C-alpha cells in the first residue's frame, strides 16, 4: 500500500495511520545494531549480517584515538566469531586537507581492508570516521564495499572487495599500532530491498 498523504480537515483513521507505519518500516534503512567502544584496540560486531537484508550501511566514528598519529584501522569480515585474514582487495585515495596532496593506500590480496585511518592524540584532533556500504556479506559470494572516510588530515574515497565466496555474519575493526586505543560509536543499518 502506498504512503498516504493527508490534507487539512481530513479524518485520520487508525487503519490508514498503521498502513503508513507499515510502509515506513518496509522501506529505506533500518537500524540493525548500535554500540559504543571505549579504550580498546579492536571492536567486533557478530551475528549482524543475515538473510533479512542483502546490503548494509556501516558508520564508525572514532571519537578519540590515543597514541601515534595516522593509524590504520584494519577491517575484516567474520563468521562464527573468526575473522577471515586473506584475499582482501581495497584502494583508498585521500586528499590532505592542508597540502592537497594525494595519498593512496592499496591492499592487494591482503589480510584486511583499509577503509579508515584514525589520527592519534599526537596529531590534530585524535579522531576518525567512516561510512560505507557493504554489499551481500551474508551471501556465499564475494563481498564488496564502497564508502568514504576522513580523519584530522585526510578525506578519502575507498572501495574494495573480498575475493572469497563465503557468507559472513560479522565485522571487526582493529588498530595496527601498539599501545594505542580507540573510543567511539558504531551503527549498522540494513537496506530494505
Amino acid at each position, binding site marked *: 500500500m502506498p504512503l498516504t498523504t493527508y490534507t487539512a480537515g481530513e479524518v485520520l483513521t487508525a487503519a490508514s495511520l498503521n498502513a503508513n507505519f507499515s510502509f515506513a518500516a518496509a522501506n529505506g534503512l533500518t537500524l540493525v545494531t548500535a*554500540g*559504543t*567502544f*571505549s*579504550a*580498546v*584496540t*579492536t*571492536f*567486533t*560486531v*557478530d*551475528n549482524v549480517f543475515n538473510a533479512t537484508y542483502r546490503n548494509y550501511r556501516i558508520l564508525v566514528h572514532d571519537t578519540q584515538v590515543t597514541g601515534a598519529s595516522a593509524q*590504520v584501522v*584494519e577491517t575484516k569480515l567474520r563468521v562464527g566469531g573468526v*575473522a577471515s585474514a586473506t584475499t582482501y582487495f581495497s584502494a583508498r585515495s585521500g586528499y590532505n586537507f592542508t597540502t592537497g596532496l594525494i595519498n593512496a593506500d592499496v591492499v592487494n590480496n591482503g*589480510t*584486511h581492508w583499509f577503509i579508515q585511518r584514525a589520527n592519534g592524540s599526537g596529531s590534530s584532533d585524535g579522531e576518525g570516521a567512516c561510512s560505507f556500504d557493504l554489499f551481500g556479506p551474508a551471501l556465499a559470494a564475494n563481498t564488496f564495499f564502497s564508502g568514504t572516510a576522513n580523519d584530522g588530515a585526510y578525506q578519502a574515497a575507498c572501495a574494495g572487495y573480498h575475493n572469497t565466496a563465503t557468507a559472513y555474519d560479522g565485522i571487526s575493526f*582493529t588498530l*595496527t*599500532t*601498539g599501545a594505542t*586505543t580507540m573510543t567511539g560509536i558504531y551503527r549498522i543499518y540494513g537496506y530494505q530491498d
Partner: protein
Amino acid sequence: MKICDNGTIREMTASEKQEQEKVYAEAETRTEAQAAKAVARQAVLDKLGLTADEAAALLG
C-alpha cells in the same frame, strides 16, 4: 589489551592477543617496506639530480 566484543569490553584472550600482535607485526613490516621504497626512490632522484616535483612533471 582490550577488545569490545559485541558491545562488551573485556581483556583479550591469549589467542586474541596473539592475533593483535600479528596485526601489529604485519603493519610494522608494511611501514618498513614503504620507508625502504621511499629511500630507494629518493636515491634514484638524487642520482638523476631531480626533485620529486620535477620527476612528477616528467612522468605526468
